[in-house]
């Protein structure tokens, strides 16, 4: 039985609608990449200018916790891939569950990251004029932490947005809305979550490992 058509009236068929949604989403992901491009350019410049301070400050960050955060986000990505698979095979119960797992990983990431921020607030490694961290006094240290807070802060905002989208999708999946004929929304939400993961895959080495 063909599910009642979710095709919006101005599209020829479901396949065109899915292709349109996919292209629109990828164009939007392109804008997200370029949004972070400005910050990566700033990082590249200040890293080439204050090389020693950046290496010193990055060594001060907690790389182990960052590795755990990366693993958590990748697990989230995997959960979303499974959700997409279940949605396509009309198992809405499993779709809702894996989406919730993905939201859980997102919240775990934010919690770990919050701990890091609190740690930095305590020791005074803050951006710009708030910087009063005694250990590193060379030029450009406040610049590293300005970039650190800007990049991870903007990324965390995107994690919050992504988790919100996935939670909304999970709620819709719980009412059995997604099926073989109509799983576009899960795919689009998944694409956004994967991009958030890809951005962190680059932030992690740049900030923590060098």
């Amino acid at each position, binding site marked *: 039985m063909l599910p009642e058509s979710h095709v919006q009236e101005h599209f020829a068929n479901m396949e065109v609608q899915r292709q349109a949604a996919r292209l629109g989403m990828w164009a939007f992901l392109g804008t997200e990449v370029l949004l972070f*491009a400005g910050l990566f350019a700033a990082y590249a410049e200040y890293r080439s200018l204050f090389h020693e301070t950046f290496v010193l400050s990055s060594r001060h960050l907690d790389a182990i916790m960052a590795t755990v955060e990366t693993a958590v986000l990748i697990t989230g990505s995997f959960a979303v891939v499974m959700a997409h698979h279940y949605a396509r095979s009309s198992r809405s119960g499993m779709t809702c569950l894996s989406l919730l797992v993905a939201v859980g990983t997102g919240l775990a990431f934010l919690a770990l990251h919050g701990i890091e921020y609190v740690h930095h607030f305590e020791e005074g490694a803050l951006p710009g004029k708030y910087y009063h961290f005694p250990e590193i006094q060379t030029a450009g240290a406040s610049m590293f932490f300005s970039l650190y807070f800007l990049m991870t802060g903007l990324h965390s905002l995107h994690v919050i947005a992504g988790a919100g989208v996935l939670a909304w999708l999970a709620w819709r999946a719980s009412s059995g809305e997604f099926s073989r004929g109509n799983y576009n929304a899960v795919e689009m939400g998944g694409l956004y979550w994967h991009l958030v993961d890809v951005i962190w*895959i680059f932030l992690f080495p740049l900030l923590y490992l060098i």
Partner: protein
Amino acid sequence: MVDTAEAEHDELSPARSAMIYLVLLVLTVATYSLSRLHLGTWTLVIAMLIAIVKASLVALFFMQLWYHRGSVRLAIAIAVLWLFLLMFFVVADVKTRYPLANPTANPMLVGPSGP
């Protein structure tokens, strides 16, 4: 001429995605441990290579670029190219600029907090 609609069946199978998930975890641990060796300038190169491998794994399989041809790949390829374009010219400017016009030549810049 709508882009070629990809066939239903060759979507990402759960088995393949689980395998890629494990590879990603292994690479994460690898990049962390390699960075602890502090190989100087090489740490950046290695870390970036691993990050590019991980990112393309996620993009090609988790985000199904492997199965969709045409304009979607072009869209994200141009965005990434623009990222490198911006970074290249900004860093080239800083490297080739009149040396005293760089922030590091700031006479007032004693500590991290400036004058």
